[in-house]
């Protein structure tokens, strides 16, 4: 009978707090991940939205090509009308 009471006391004083402590640690860890994953999701969503302007790169690509062509035209004209430098 005495051993039974000792077992009950150990169960209530030692086992139950340990179980509660461990489970609470797992729960706290899981809950601490939630805000992080929410921030990640928000960042990914915002990043995806920022990339909506990527198609504009195609227009930029065309403009750069036209600009370089114009520069080439001007450069070619200058090459014709301006004398070359003297050879050293």
């Amino acid at each position: 009978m005495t051993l039974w009471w000792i077992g009950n006391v150990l169960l209530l004083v030692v086992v139950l707090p340990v179980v509660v402590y461990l489970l609470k640690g797992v729960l706290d860890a899981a809950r601490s991940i939630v805000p992080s994953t929410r921030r990640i999701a928000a960042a990914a969503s915002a990043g995806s939205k920022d990339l909506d302007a990527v198609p504009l790169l195609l227009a930029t690509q065309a403009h750069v090509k036209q600009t370089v062509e114009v520069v080439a035209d001007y450069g070619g004209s200058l090459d014709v009308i301006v004398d070359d430098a003297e050879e050293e």
Partner: protein
Amino acid sequence: MPAAGVVLIVAVVLIVLALVYFLVSTIVALRQITSDLDDAIAGVGGIIEKSAPVADVVKDINANLDAGVALLEGLLVKKAGLVDSMGLVEGLYPGAAAEGLRNFPDSRTIKAPRISEVYTKGTLTLARLGREAPIAVASPAGPVLRNVEGGSLDARSLYPEERQSRPKRFPRSPVIGTGAPVQYPPSEQRGGTTPDEAEIRDKGPWAETSAEGIVPAELGGSDAPREMLAEDRELGSSVLGETTASDEPATGNGIDPDAGDEADAISDGGPEPPEGAEPDLKDAAAPPRQVDLDDRS
């Protein structure tokens, strides 16, 4: 049931309740995590999908910009020379010459001349494009930018060879009038050139008529002796007018007769200037034109 058994049951129930509470809470938290990760994965997937063509587009843009840079650098070095190019770059962007030109590794070791500190942009442009800029004249320290005369000759080559690159001294315009060194009788010069023997031989006998004049002198042409001319040829004719036959001055002041045969309407005539009047010398300091100097020489 003994009391110890009741306590045991209560302890087990408490432990089970604790397990249920914490485990359920953990399950809920993990489900939230899963849901948020799904959202994050969707966002990342969108990023990957949208950024897929960026690499190719940016590569193409960079290739075009590289071509533009190579073109401009090459043109600058070709026209100004590598040393002057670095001077121009340094003048526009101080410190940029140290980085050098991308396609010319030697440019990093060149000490950039201080072109922009000496010449303004406009002057430099004139020196590059024109031969008339004062800067284009050779300086005591040697050619400023390049051989100006060489550049000028290159430009001249655009024009006809005879007059530009090796100009001759062409005959001057003929002197006409009473001071002309060669006097032609009126009968021989009625417009156009008087045909010489070669031209007469080339054009035929009819050209001899032109050589003799429209009206030869022996037939009463304008250079015929006075006695052969009609009355209308006389100066006193009513058609041509006549002299006044008077020494009275035609103008108010007239020409100073003291000058005699050397009298001049400018120096010997005109109004007397008032006492103490300063002559108008506003144009006196102007040097003679180069054309006039060339004519004198």
